Structure formats: structure tokens, C-alpha cells
């Protein structure tokens, strides 16, 4: 069977398969997942009452969540083709559109991710002073001054502190939604069989949380905190691997288009980079390194963390590009 366009249609990004989402969207998904992961840990360990033992996880890491989300949003907006109209995104709330509720989730999470560290500003100040980072304490002190001077910010932050448990629960829920969203955004598209599977949401959440733990592992100077994160991360990697295998098994059991989608990773053009680079270097190698570290081997702390972070980004790049290649109608 020969199948071709009888009339030329050289529209960018449509042929031979849809190709309109590139690195900015992959990075956006990665950053969303990373921020979600960081905030999930902060909320959980706060709720578990372990903020003292895990100061970095609960108080310091969330400082990065807001800029990470902002960077993600910037990339999303950067990728819009009708940028001047971006405000339309915030004139509508369309629960059926992942792009819409994702944007709103991002807004909500970004507000919390900003308030969370602000509510801890005193502890953060202490944290910095202890480490002698005097330049940065200038910032925290300025914030403290500002807060005390102005009534409305003061009231907001005070209320936040007061109901922090409640807000922690909300933050946890929204962070999980954000993590899942990064997967649902793709899996909402039936037109791309690779994306169209229910595992993508949990898989992206797991991967996002894993990158969050890696982030803590990488930057925390608390050995215990790092080891705990390592242990958690190992189980996350195990879950991720389980999801990945399960995902492909599900596709193999599906209709022809799903088989074809899975085939891109099982013998097709993405096989080597997916299994070799992402699974091998981005999951199994850091898993092994973490296991060795737990057994007392000396491993440069940043190595497994950075591998996981890079792997997380690569995973999203692969899923975004392969997903767009997976279509019902393919052109030769």
C-alpha cells in the first residue's frame, strides 16, 4: 500500500507526524515534576513533624520550587504561538482540559511554594547564619523587615504560619496533582497512542518525586537527610521501573497502534536511548550507586542525584517526541 499526500502540504510541524512540542514542553513537564517532588517531601516531612531533623527538605529545598515553577511557566509561555493572548488562559477554567487545570494547579502551587518558605523565613535565616552565608541572610533579613512593616503581608504570612498544618495538607494534595498533571497532560491525547495510557500520570508523578528526592540528595549538607532520601529514591526508582514495564506490557496487549507505539521502545528507534541511557544511566546506575552508598561505600553525593535529574529530563524529552511520532495515521 502506497499512501501519500496528493496535494503538497508543507505545514511546519504536521508531517510526517505532528511535531509541535519540543524541548520547552519537555522541560516544562520536568520542572513541574521536580517542583512537585520537592514540595511533596517538604509537606510530608513537615506533617510527620520532622522539620528539625530534615531542615533542608522541609525549609530550604522549597525555596527553589517557586523559581523552578516560574521557569517552567516561562518555557510554557515561550512555546505558545499566540503569546499576546496568554491571558486568555486565566480567563477560563476548563476542567476537561489538562492544559487549563494544569495551569491553574501551577498557579495555586506557585502561590503556596512562595508562601511556604516565607513562613519559614526565620528558620531559614538561622539556617543561613549557622552556615555563615551572610550575603544571603541580607535577603532573609530584608524579607523579615518587610513583613513586620506591612500589615497585609504580615497578616498573610502569620495566618499561614498559624494554619500551616492545614496548608501543608493542601500543598501536598496540589503537589501530587501537579506531579500527576505532568503525565496527564500527555495521556489526555488519544490521538497519540503512546501517551494514551493510564499509567503515564502515576509514572510521571513517581519520576517527578524521584527527581525531587534527587534534588535534596544533591544539595542537602545533612548526611542523614541524604541517606534517607537515597533510600526513598531507591524505592521510587523501583516503582518507576515497575510502571515502565507495566506500561509497555499494557501497550503490547492493546490494538495495533499501541503495539506500534510500544515498538518504538522495544526494538524501534528509541530503544537504545530509552533503555541504555534513561533506564540504564538514569535509573539503574543511580539505584546501584545509592545502594552502595547505603552500604557505606563512598560515592560522590552529587553523582546519583544528577544522573536522576538528567534521566528525568531525558525521559520527558523521549516521551514528548516519541509520543508525537505515535499516531493513528502515519505518513511514509
Amino acid at each position, binding site marked *: 500500500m*502506497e499512501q*501519500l499526500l496528493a*496535494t*503538497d502540504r*508543507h505545514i511546519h510541524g504536521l508531517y510526517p507526524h505532528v511535531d509541535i512540542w519540543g524541548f520547552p514542553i519537555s522541560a516544562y513537564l520536568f520542572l513541574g515534576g521536580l517542583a512537585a517532588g520537592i514540595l511533596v517531601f517538604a509537606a510530608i516531612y513537615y506533617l510527620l513533624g520532622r522539620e528539625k531533623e530534615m531542615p533542608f527538605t522541609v525549609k530550604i529545598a522549597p525555596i527553589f520550587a517557586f523559581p523552578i515553577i516560574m521557569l517552567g511557566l516561562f518555557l510554557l509561555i515561550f512555546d505558545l504561538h499566540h503569546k*499576546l*493572548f496568554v491571558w*486568555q488562559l486565566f*480567563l*477560563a*477554567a*476548563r*476542567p*476537561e*482540559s489538562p492544559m487549563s487545570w494544569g495551569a491553574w494547579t501551577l498557579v495555586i502551587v506557585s502561590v503556596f511554594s512562595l508562601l511556604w518558605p516565607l513562613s519559614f523565613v526565620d528558620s531559614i535565616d538561622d539556617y543561613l547564619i549557622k552556615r555563615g552565608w551572610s550575603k544571603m541572610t541580607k535577603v532573609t533579613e530584608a524579607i523579615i523587615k518587610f513583613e513586620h512593616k506591612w500589615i497585609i503581608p504580615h497578616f498573610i504570612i502569620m495566618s499561614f504560619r498559624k494554619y500551616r498544618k492545614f496548608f501543608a495538607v493542601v500543598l501536598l494534595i496540589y503537589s501530587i496533582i501537579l506531579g500527576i498533571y505532568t503525565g496527564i497532560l500527555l495521556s489526555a491525547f488519544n490521538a497519540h497512542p503512546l501517551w494514551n495510557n493510564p499509567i503515564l500520570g502515576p509514572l510521571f508523578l513517581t519520576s517527578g518525586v524521584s527527581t525531587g528526592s534527587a534534588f535534596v540528595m544533591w544539595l542537602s549538607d545533612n548526611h542523614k537527610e541524604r541517606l534517607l532520601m537515597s533510600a526513598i529514591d531507591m524505592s521510587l526508582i523501583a516503582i518507576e521501573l515497575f510502571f515502565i514495564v507495566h506500561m509497555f506490557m499494557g501497550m503490547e496487549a492493546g490494538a495495533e497502534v499501541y503495539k506500534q507505539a510500544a515498538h518504538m521502545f522495544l526494538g524501534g528507534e528509541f530503544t537504545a536511548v530509552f533503555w541504555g541511557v534513561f533506564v540504564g544511566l538514569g535509573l539503574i546506575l543511580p539505584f546501584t550507586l545509592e545502594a552502595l552508598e547505603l552500604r557505606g561505600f563512598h560515592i560522590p553525593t552529587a553523582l546519583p542525584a544528577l544522573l536522576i535529574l538528567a534521566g528525568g529530563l531525558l525521559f520527558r524529552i523521549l516521551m514528548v517526541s516519541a509520543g508525537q511520532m505515535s499516531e493513528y495515521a502515519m505518513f*511514509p
Partner: protein
Amino acid sequence: MDNINRRDFIKISSVATAGMALTWSGTSFVSDLLKGEVVPLSESIAKKVPTVCEVCFWNCAGWAYLDRDDNLQKIKGNAIDPHCNGRLCPRGTGGVGMYADEDRLKKPMIREGKPGEQKFREVSWDEAIDHIVKKMKGIEAKHGREAMALLHHGKTGPHFEFLFEAYGSGNIAEPAGAQCLITREAGFITTYGAGLASPEPTDTRNADCLVLIGNHIGENMHNGHVQDMSHLIEQGGTVITVDPRFSTAAGHSKYWLPIKPGTDIALLLAWMNVIINEEIYDKEYVEKYTYGFDLLKDHVQKYTPEWAAAITTLSAADIRKTAKVMAGLAPKTIVHPGRHTAWYGDDTQRTRAIAILNALLGSWGRVGGFYFPERIKPPHYPHPQMPKPKWTWKDYTKEKHKMAIMGITNIVIDHALPEYKGKHKIKGMFITATNIIQSVPDVEKTKRALQNLDLVVVVDTMPSEITGYADVILPEATYLERYDHLRTSHHKVPNIALRAPVMKPRWETKPGWWIAREIGIKLGLEKYYPWKDFEEVLDWQLKQVGTSLEEMKKIGVKRYSKKKPLYINENEEYWFNTNTGKIELYSTDFAEWGYDPMPVYKEKDEAPVGFFNLIYGRVPMHTFGRTTNNPNLYDLKEEGHLWVHPKVAKIYGIESGQEVWLKNQDGKISTFPSKVRITQRISPTSVYLPHGFGSKSKKLSRTYGKGSADYEMLTNIKIDPETGGTGMRNNFVTLLTENPHKNIES
């Protein structure tokens, strides 16, 4: 205002019907402030101007619609036009691009560089025409007025034909003859005493069976043919297609005979053999209206299906079967005459075989066969008697080619060659609206002739290759910017159609009538141009046929009732315009002139080892090279791919989309490569290349260098003895995967 209201209505209802989400975005006034959405102007209130399409020469009548700013928006068919029935083809619809093309010729130009080199100086119309007149006077002094020639095409032609006739030059020819349908006309005139002209009087809408021989209707988008074929298919009619390629028509046919190229006459003779010997021909019709049946019967005895099978590579069973099918549905069977029939150098005989087959089936003058068309011909605007030239094209063409019913471009060109030493020397040439570099085969000869001329004037809208050989280029306004002669076609419904200017000519372009008249006046031919504006001519002519320019501007097309019957009245005597007064199955003229009185199959050249038959044809979106640079149509099809069978592709190791160059049997190599389409639709012994691509004119910014040009490969030209038409399908090509120009290119 209507539009705005309507949009509001839709918006509100959309919320009601869609209403699935919490949409707070009813704030469209905010966004409307930024930028309004433009709804196309309704056809019912838009201004429209009647036009007659000139993108191809089917010449459909249509309406050009203007947008809110009085710019050209679109062109649609005129519903009462019998050529198009309100529906244009893609090229007609894309005619807007002809007007919009920024690559158009903009100002008159005079050559500075050597011939073939595109170096020109922009001049005023006065200077350009003075230059032409001076040169023409020079030629006249040395060689006489007869030494001027005109090669033309389309509706521009008549303006210059008139100029030439008034001036006293009679070397007039168009590629539409020798390169296209002269052989077909000759074949039918010889048989029926009547030609077919355009549109062909095929009564396909009433037919039950249509036989296409290498006629790729559907890729060849002559509108009426396509519409009629589609109608026939819808009615459950049978299409039989004979083509070495699985053409679009073949794809829509009940029977496809993938014939070996060049062997059509063998098939046609075998069909006659079956139809005669099985006595399934229309006996009464043959008896009553034909001459020479017994001679034909004897003649075809040896041409059995088995004999033809060996030649055509078809099966004898298929030949028999299809003969029976077409005879079974006769007389509502049309063996289609085709249009471009200058193929093998025996095409008058080939189309005569088609004509004879139709006669055996009794389809000529019958419902569902060929009808008798009628034409409304307004008289010429009164003018003094034209001078009689001492010699014309007839003097050097007719003796050799008795059926040359019109000027033969290639023979006119022969008389401009430096080696021509006879008395009919051509020294100056006007070329209007035809790119003879692409349309007349043997391009090297054409170039030598052009370089030997004292004056070459090109009148065109686009800077095609031929403009590079001109001494003076005159930029013509496109059909959307000018009046032309009325369309007065032969048709089932007698009719006239008006082409009125839709837009003002862009830049300094001028309508053909204006250019010809200006030259005429400067040549001292004022008395032939007693009018100032072509509107006067049209209005006068229209008033002679019961209408006026004013009325025609409102209706575009006027239909008249038919005076003569459409078909043969079986109860009356019918006299054909031949020597015998009958359909000549045996041509008495041909017998007298020494041509074969009945078609004979002659062997054609065989492809050398490693070479393939070059089959050229069309893509439906383009009219030769006329449209390949048209922005709309270029958008639709940038390049015609070279069709190659998968087996051939495998041998050469070619991948789909790869570029290959062509080399023909004489070692001629294509300038540009073609992208390959690997397809089962072409036989492994042939390749297919759409015509009109591979332009070498850099001024055609889009199409320049896109694809290889079939014309470059046409070096083996077989002249049809009866007409002088050029057989162009005796050329073979091989594929070059490496760039053959790599070392030569500068």
C-alpha cells in the same frame, strides 16, 4: 453589519450548544479590541466581474469576486456556462495566483546581452514599440513583410493574428497544433469530414462507455472532460482505459489495459478485427453512412487479437473482452479522441483508427456518442480588406504535409534556421503567450533559430525561458486585467462568454489588444484599427448577436438555442463533408496523396538496454509551465515527481524522494534532478514525468530548478507525415543518481 450580527448569533449559540465548561471567556470585546476576526465577504453581496479563464485553454467562464477592499478574492465558475457548469478546476480557482504573482513581467524591456542571456534594460512602451517597428521595417526592406512569423497561444493570439494579417505576414502557428491536437483533427477530418476542436463534442453525459487511449482525464483537468467522466461513473457507465501507466482514469475504470507504449494502433486494429469478425459492429449505421467497409474488413483480417497481444503485451482475451464490452454498449460508446496526440509520428493514422472504431460502433452523430456542436459567431468589427501576402506558411508546409490544417510551429522554426537557404526565410518573430522553449520539441534547434532572427518579440505575463531569447519583452496584463475577444466556442449549447477586466493592470502591463493596436498604428496600419478601446469592438460585436457589453457584464455567459439537430436524424439523408459524402473508413484522399488509406501498425523504436520509455503527462494542478510559478498552484504541487516502479528503484538503489537526473538515448542530460516517487502505478519498463516542471528561468523564483524538464529529453522527434505534427514519445531515458553537472557547474 449583517456579518457582525451573524457572528454574534453564532457565538451565543456556541455557548449554548458547546456549554461544557465554566467559560468566563465571553469577554470577546477585549480581544476584539486587539484584532478583529475577518469573515470572508458573502458571495451574495460581493462585487463580481465576468471572466473567461486563461489558465488552460478549455476557457471556462467564471466570476471573479472582489473583497471588501475591491481586491481580487476568488474566482468561481459561472453556473450557466456550458464549459464548466459553475465549477472551475483547481487551476481556474487558482487563477488568482496568476494575477498576484510578484514574479510577473512588469515593464517593457529591450535586450542588452547576448541571446539566451537575461540582461535587459527597462524601457517605456513608446521606446519598446518604436524599437520593434524600426526592426520590422528593416526586415521588410530586405526580406519583405512575409518574413515575419507569429507563434502564439490562447486569447492573446487573435490580437496579433489580426496585426499580422493587416501587416501582410502569413507565418502563423501555435503549439496547440503541431504539438498537440493537429493529428487528431486530421484523423477525424479525414474520416468524418469534420474536426473536433475544443471543447470536443463528445456526448459523454449520455454515454454508457468511455474508452480512453492514453488520455489521462483527471490528471489532464480539461474541465468538461473531467465533469463528464465523473458523471458517467456515477451513472454506472463503463470506462476502459488504455495506458502503460495506472493513471487516475485507469484507477476509475472497469477495465485497464496496461499497453506497451507505442502499440496503440495494433490494439485498435485488433479491436476492429474482433468487432467486424464477430459482427458486433453497427451494421445499419455502417451500411448507411460509411465508405470502404469491405476494404477495411479485408485490411484488418490479419490483425487478430493474438497478433496484437504479442505486440501490445496485452492478452488476446482482454482485447476480445473489451471489444465486446464497447460494442455491447454502442452506440453509446465513445472511443475518446484525446487531445494532446502528437506522440509517435504516426498519430494521424492512430487517431484515424480511433475515428474508424467510433464509426464501426456507430457513435458519431448519435446520443451518447459525438454530437454536432454549434457556434454563435459574431461578425468581425468592420475593417478594410487585408493585404494578401506573397507567401505564407502554407507555401512551405502544405505540399509535404497535406493535412497541415494549421501552421506548424516546428516547420516555421525550420525556416528561421541559419542553414535554411530557400526563399521562405523568416527573419523576425513574435511569440505571444507561449513558452516555445518548453512547448516545441528539439529545443536546441529552436534556440539556433531564435539566435538567427533579426527580431524576436515576446509578449507574455511571466518571465519564462522564452523571454530570455527575446530582443523586446512586452509585459502583458493577465486575463484578469484585460478584455479579450469573446469566447465563441462550438458547443452543445451555442453560447458566448465575456472576459472583462477584473482589476487594473498591475505595474506597466498592458492588455494584448492594446499592445497589438499600438504596434499596428506605429506600423501605419491605422485604418485597420478604427476603434480606440476594445470595449467598442466587443459592444459592436455583441449587438450583432442580440446582446450588449452592458448585458454581458451582468451575465457573463449568454446561451442561445440550437438551430441544427444535435444528432443525425436517421430518417433523413446525411451527407458528410468528405469526397464520398460518407464516413471514410477507407480514405480516398490519403489514397490519392500516398498516405496509408487505412491505418497500419508500424513498429516503434525500442528502448535501449537500461533505458525506459519516457511517458510524460500532467498533474491536475498545473497547465504546463504556465502555472508552476503561480503561488497558489505551486503551493498545491511544487514539483512533479518522477514515477519509478519499485523494481527499477531497487536496481538503482533509489529511495523515495531521492533526486535523480535523466539521460536520454542521445546522451542528453537533464539540467535539474527530479525527486523520485516509487510507485506501482507505473510499469517497470517506463518512467513517468509530469510536463511543465524544471524551468530554467531564474526569474521564476518558485519553480526555478524544481524537477527535471521532459522537453529536454525530447530529442528524437518523429514527424507525422500527414500533418507535420511532432511525435515526442519516442524518447527513452536512464536514471543518474550522481549529479552529472558536479564538475561542470560554476
